């Protein structure tokens, strides 16, 4: 009995002396055992890069694609200049597994879809590289959970908890504001230069709208992207149009065929900011909290009565580790179409 308890203490001691050694179950149910000290994390896509950077900027080995100067300006030195390492899974694999190995990676993280395709890819890369590969759900509401799990894996649970708790709180605040809203305007989200690409209920591209409880005009379309006809948009007659395409935003005012849509007649067509990461649709990561605030302000101006500049500054400070300058904020929010004039 004494021997057993001694063994137990020994085990407990070994266990406790190895922080980060504890296994974490990822969103696919796979047990991930990272090495004792995770110093270098490879993010498989932009949403994962954002979370890793937010928790511990020094541990991110590189961005999926190198930042352009206007994007890098939002991050403290030298993080805007981190190397381009490519995308590992999901759509368009641009990374080379050897690059991941060469970057002396301790942990690979992907945040996004957790379906069988992505899970099997994660397994395959993990077997090939012998580097633990964790996969987390990228939905807006899963972001706090992803942050916490990632923090445990990376050995930074405190920093992650701070971010997660704040994010959770902001989501709760958003929901309460939406619940107070008395009217829900009909919204159409138009992508692509023609503005005729949209998505139905459940599309990852319109998750912000679903989260805001907005009435998506194209709700009946398939969950995913699809082209719709302009006649259909005129028939839906949305009160607000949101877009991520500056070309569409510009042309919607000059094209007579858009003129009879209620949103165009009422000048309620808005263009989402896109720096350093898009706000509204892509990349589908934690950045979309900004899009939820922005769209919320446009759809429910009375309930979303906060100062967007304060909110944006806070998000940037917590997730990008640098507050935007006044000029940057002016450029973000003052771009034509971003906010009502």
């Amino acid at each position: 009995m004494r021997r057993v308890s001694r063994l137990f203490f020994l085990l407990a001691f070994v266990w406790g002396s190895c922080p980060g050694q504890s296994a974490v179950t990822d969103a696919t149910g796979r047990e991930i055992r990272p090495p004792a000290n995770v110093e270098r994390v490879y993010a498989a896509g932009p949403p994962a890069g954002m979370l890793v950077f937010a928790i511990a900027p020094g541990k991110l080995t590189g961005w999926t694609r190198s930042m352009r100067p206007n994007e890098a300006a939002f991050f403290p030195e030298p993080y805007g200049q981190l190397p381009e390492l490519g995308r590992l899974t999901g759509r368009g694999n641009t990374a080379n597994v050897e690059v991941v190995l060469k970057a002396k990676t301790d942990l690979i993280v992907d945040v996004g879809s957790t379906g069988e395709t992505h899970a099997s890819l994660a397994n395959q890369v993990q077997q090939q590289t012998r580097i633990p590969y964790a996969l987390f759900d990228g939905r807006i509401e899963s972001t706090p959970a992803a942050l916490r799990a990632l923090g445990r894996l990376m050995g930074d649970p405190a920093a992650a908890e701070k971010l997660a708790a704040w994010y959770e709180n902001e989501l709760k605040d958003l929901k309460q504001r939406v619940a107070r809203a008395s009217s829900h305007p009909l919204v159409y989200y138009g992508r692509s230069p023609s503005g005729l690409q949209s998505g139905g209920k459940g599309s990852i591209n319109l998750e912000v709208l679903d989260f805001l409880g907005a009435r998506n005009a194209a709700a009946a379309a398939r969950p995913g992207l699809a082209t719709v006809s302009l006649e259909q948009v005129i028939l839906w007659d949305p009160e607000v149009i949101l877009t991520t395409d500056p070309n569409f935003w510009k042309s919607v005012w000059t094209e007579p065929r858009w003129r009879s849509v209620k949103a165009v007649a009422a000048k309620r067509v808005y263009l989402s900011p896109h720096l350093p990461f898009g706000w509204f649709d892509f990349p589908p990561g934690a950045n979309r909290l900004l899009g939820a605030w922005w769209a919320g302000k446009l759809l429910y101006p009375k309930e979303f009565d906060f100062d967007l500049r304060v909110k944006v500054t806070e998000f940037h400070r917590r997730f990008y580790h640098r507050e935007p300058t006044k000029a940057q904020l002016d450029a973000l929010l003052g771009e034509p179409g971003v906010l009502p004039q």
Partner: protein
Amino acid sequence: MTRISYLAAGGMLLCLVAVAFAVGRYPVSLSELLSVLTGQPVAGSVETVVLQVRGPRILAALLVGAALAAAGTAYQGMFRNPLVSPDILGVSTGAALGAVLGIFLSQGILFIQVFAFIGGLAAVGLVYWIGSRLRGHDPLLALVLTGVVIGTLLGSVIALLKYLADPYNQLPAITYWLLGSLASISPKEILYSIPLLLAGLAPMLLLRWRMNLLALPDDEARALGVDVRRLRTLVVVCATLMTASAVAISGIIGWVGLLIPHAARLLVGPDFGRLLPLAMLLGAAFLLAVDTLCRTIATIEVPPGVLTALIGTPFFLWLFALARRRW
């Protein structure tokens, strides 16, 4: 037979146009439609729908269908080959590369279309320039082979751009462009493309009787006093102009340029003078029918290329079995 075919095709086209104006996602009653077309005021968005959205789209379907069918007819005659379609010399692939480049560079619709148009012309220009410099071969064979390899090359450049494109934003836009669609046609685009289409069509119509000589071996045609090389260049230029301006506004819609010339030939025989106008009528009718289905059967748009293939494949096989003796 010829006259009956023309009358039937023309009548069918008129009926289709009437149906196309009457149906769509936005409900427009017959009386509203008549008021709009006669210039009387109508309540709501009906006028916009009919004059700005549905009307231009019907016109675009007619133009693109006729252009692709005409180009296909000319090429099938010139190459003496029933499997030739308008993109044999790489015009569609070149246009696709231009459009993909435009999307990659985050351009608006107008520039994407201009890029596509220039890309189509440039690709065929390149193919023709190289193909006509390969001496010691049958000139047509050299042209076709050059078209195939240059098309493959351009295809891999497209693949490279897709690979480098932003997967969340640009890649879907590229995919949708390559699928082809008439959903975003505006009246302005049609105004730009009509002169280009006519510039390609006019010489072909004027020379339609001489086009038959292209089907003869070169020396025989020369013996009849026709400069085959010049005529051939002219056909390539005209067909390319028509296809490039069509593809620039519609994206890639397959099968029309391959299938319709066969159907027309089955009805009136291989004489180009009789064939060309009928092929254009049938091409216009076919694409209008397909596009009307594309925009009405579901909340979302159906890509026309998918429907043309679904209809085209069995129809083509049937035609082929039927018309074997003519070729």
